[in-house]
């Protein structure tokens, strides 16, 4: 099982390293998002106070949505999805492999995003880097765990491009709320570890629920 997950991750990483399509488009899209927010929210050289964390999470969710759609679109276009489904490994292994690939890609994007948002919106995001990393990773994982399931499900559906955000955003709203609140607490000048810990624990709880549900659902919905 772990070997199958690893092989799928390695396959995705190899394809990505050769084409760099997803990494480039996702990172560039995320930067464009942040710039759009900057142009609309920064007035007379000053960002509205406290918008930084929100902008960071919006950019993560928009870029994540795009990346999720593209990963599975690629499998569909090259007609490797059927092969992926025929892999002699349990279905959840396919799901976990895809999920790991998405999380890695989004983490790369976030490494670019966080300093950019901190710079453009004068947010003290990097004052507690370990907490920030933990919160952003937990949030990304929760978002991607639902997103991978739905992107995989929708791969053969009609109008999948627009259906993915329609399904994904209502469900991942809890992750967004907890992520933004935790990041706001991290960026506060008077850092309160208890508040951050509370929202982080909530994020982890959402991750566990989402991952469990997705692992349950992946097998029946991906079987013809």
């Amino acid at each position, binding site marked *: 099982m772990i070997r199958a997950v690893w092989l799928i991750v390695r396959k995705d990483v190899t394809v990505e390293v050769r084409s760099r399509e997803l990494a480039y488009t996702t990172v560039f899209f995320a930067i464009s998002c942040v710039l759009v927010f900057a142009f609309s929210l920064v007035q007379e050289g000053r960002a509205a106070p406290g918008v930084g964390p929100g902008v960071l999470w919006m950019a993560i969710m928009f870029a994540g949505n795009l990346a999720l759609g593209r990963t599975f679109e690629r499998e569909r276009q090259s007609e490797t999805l059927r092969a992926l489904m025929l892999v002699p490994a349990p279905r959840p292994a396919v799901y976990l492999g895809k999920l790991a690939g998405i999380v890695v890609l989004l983490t790369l994007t976030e490494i670019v995003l966080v300093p950019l948002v901190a710079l453009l919106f004068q947010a003290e995001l990097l004052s507690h880097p370990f907490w920030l990393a933990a919160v952003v990773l937990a949030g990304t994982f929760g978002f991607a765990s639902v997103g991978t399931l739905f992107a995989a*499900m*929708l791969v053969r559906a009609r109008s999948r491009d627009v259906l993915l955000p329609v399904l994904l955003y*209502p469900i991942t709203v*809890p992750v967004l709320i907890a992520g933004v609140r935790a990041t706001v607490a991290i960026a506060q000048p008077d850092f309160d570890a208890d508040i951050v810990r509370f929202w982080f624990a909530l994020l982890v709880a959402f991750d566990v629920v989402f991952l469990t549900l997705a692992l349950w659902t992946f097998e029946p919905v991906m079987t013809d």
Partner: protein
Amino acid sequence: MPKWFQPATLVCGLMFAATPFVIASAPYESTMGLVQKVFYYHMPSAWMFLGSSIVCGIASVRFLASGDARHDRTALAAAEMAVLFGLLTLVTGPLWARKAWGTWWVWDARVTSSLVGWMIAWAYLILRQYGGPGSEKLAAGLALFGMANVPFIYISVNYWRTIHPATTVVPKLPFSMGFPLIFCLAAFTLLLVLLMKLRMRVAEQQSRLDSLYLSLDEQR
């Protein structure tokens, strides 16, 4: 006379009796006055909303496990009911909140999670409508997540510090207010069951018609 006529008459009678007789005779609440009576509609529709989300989730699980189209029809009917009663909940809530809290909308845990639950039910219907063939299975997966949200909506008022009244209010009601509430709950439950049955019948006849068309094509 069709089979559903008598139950429909009963439900209509109960629903029409609710406002002019039962709710009107309930006493005014001491601080909120008249506006508190929205509650007799708000809470039953919220319960029906949560109930039909759960029914939709359970029917979806059974559909995923067995592949039986009957469970799928139940899930579809329940999702439509969740959208309907969720809308009633989200309209009656602000009507009351404007007077009681002084604002139409508050982003507190229960209001937010109810809105999310309602959006999931709506996304379910959108997916079924526009997802093309095979979307009923995908929608069933979505319904599971919608069901997971329900306990969160229910407990949110007791765990978070919010301004929404907690679930402990209801058992403490005096009889004069408790009776109209139970009456409305019963009427709404019957309404939900009736609408579900009718909707499932329509879906069943639709699928029967589809299979008839198919067999007709084969004969030609």
